[in-house]
């Protein structure tokens, strides 16, 4: 209890000292908090997106088979559907008919999907919420397209995808396969690619090899590769942002090091006086320990909680522009709040601990010298 009381007294004194120089300390605290906030936001955001992609794409087709020619993707002839279906272990092969539509008025790309089982007829579409937000010329619930032959085609919006599915459906325009072919000019005997379901997912690689033997120029893409592509993407992007931020982080480190190690004349005189009135070296070290600890802990808490609210409650608006690139259409989505405690612990040890300890070293140097000399220097 005596030790605790002593520490509390030291903390009281330290906080008084910090408050006495509040302008300088609050400015430093603000920058410290901002750095932790930004780094933590990047970590939270990229991890949450990676987990979301992993969970959502878990239900993607086990294999997509494209046809390549001269390094470019070509339309897949439907004649190959039977060839692939005849491979042992293949459960089903379904042609996917899809493509892109560039809308010149809004300079936006949309994804078109043609479905055989489209239930709203040949003169209607089902669209994502992003299409409604961006198309611009939605009049009387109709979308106007320019067909491959230059003629206009207007299609009624019969239904919309739920806003909850924006992350995967924001730019989708779904229509009947006949309408898709009329709009894009894709011949009846072709599809964009095949979606292949297999009986045993462990046989995917073997089946993919067989497909490349049967279909000339086939390029099978496995689901695990799709998931890994997204995992690598978010690792890459978070790393990229940290690299961009590294200059700011480095500047902060230099400033923190300078503040922690370069004692002002006032601080030196203060230590001399404290030693003169009977404070021991351990008391002065304890006082400085609490100074580093209080500032860095406050910055850590404020930064982490702020980052959590920024990413999980407000969907990271500060990163939206970096993510958007040049796309007009961006989905609105909320990320599932999950925090990796290991990463939080690493962040704690990389931010709180170093600053706390670098504040002690110069004080130790000063506090072991003669108080009279220190006061004269001050």
């Amino acid at each position, binding site marked *: 209890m005596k030790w605790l009381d002593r520490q509390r*007294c030291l903390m*009281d004194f330290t*906080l*008084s000292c910090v408050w006495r120089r509040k302008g300088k300390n609050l400015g430093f605290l603000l920058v410290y908090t901002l750095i932790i906030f930004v780094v933590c936001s990047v970590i939270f955001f990229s991890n949450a997106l990676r987990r*979301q992609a992993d*969970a*959502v*794409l878990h*239900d*993607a*087709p086990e294999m*997509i088979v494209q046809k*390549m020619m001269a*390094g470019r*993707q070509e339309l897949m002839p439907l004649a190959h559907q039977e060839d692939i279906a005849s491979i042992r272990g293949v459960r089903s092969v379904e042609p996917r008919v899809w493509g892109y539509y560039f809308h010149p008025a809004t300079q*936006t*790309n*949309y*994804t078109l999907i043609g479905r055989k089982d489209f239930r709203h007829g040949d003169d209607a579409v089902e669209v*994502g919420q*992003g299409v409604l937000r961006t198309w611009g010329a939605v009049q009387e619930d109709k979308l106007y397209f320019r067909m491959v032959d230059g003629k206009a085609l207007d299609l009624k919006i019969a239904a919309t995808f*739920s806003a909850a599915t924006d*992350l*995967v459906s*924001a*730019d989708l325009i*779904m229509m009947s396969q006949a309408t898709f072919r009329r709009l894009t000019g894709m011949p009846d005997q072709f599809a964009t*690619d095949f979606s292949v379901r297999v009986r045993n997912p462990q046989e995917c*690689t073997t089946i*993919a090899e067989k497909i*490349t033997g049967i279909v000339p120029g086939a390029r*099978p*893409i*496995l689901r695990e*590769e*799709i998931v*890994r*592509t997204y995992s690598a*993407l978010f*690792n890459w*992007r978070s790393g990229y942002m940290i690299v961009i931020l590294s200059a700011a982080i480095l500047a902060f480190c230099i400033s923190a090091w300078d503040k922690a190690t370069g004692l002002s004349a006032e601080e030196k005189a203060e230590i001399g006086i404290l030693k003169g009135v009977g404070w021991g070296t351990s008391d002065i070290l304890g006082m400085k320990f609490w100074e580093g600890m209080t500032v860095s802990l*406050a910055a850590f*808490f*404020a930064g*982490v*909680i702020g980052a*959590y609210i920024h990413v999980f409650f407000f969907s990271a608006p500060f990163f939206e522009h*970096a*993510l*958007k*690139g*040049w*796309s007009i259409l*961006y*989905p609105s989505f*909320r990320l*599932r*709040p999950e*925090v990796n405690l290991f990463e*939080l612990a690493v962040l704690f040890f990389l931010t709180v601990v170093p600053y706390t300890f670098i504040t002690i070293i110069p004080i130790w140097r000063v506090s072991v010298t003669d108080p009279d000399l220190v006061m004269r220097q001050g």
Partner: protein
Amino acid sequence: MRRSSIYLGFSLSCLVALGFLCFIYPHLSAEQYDRVLAEQKRVVRDLQLTDLCLFSEARYTRNLSQADWHAPFQDNPMAFDTFPSGSLVRPTVLLADDTP
């Protein structure tokens, strides 16, 4: 009131808030997020989708996993690219792995 009491009170409140956000809030909101996830998975399954709608400005950024090998940003990581997101995204793992 002692300054240390104010600071300890602040730290304790932050710790409780952080604990709530990390351990309790995810459970409280789990049902809502599970519902959204189930709906997203249903759309992915029904429409046989392969990619997230994050970058829609170009075909090779909209469907990252389906992009062809000669899409500009996949030539090499520093290749000149028309679209900024080409600099932010990484080539598909297919290129790195040499898998079929």
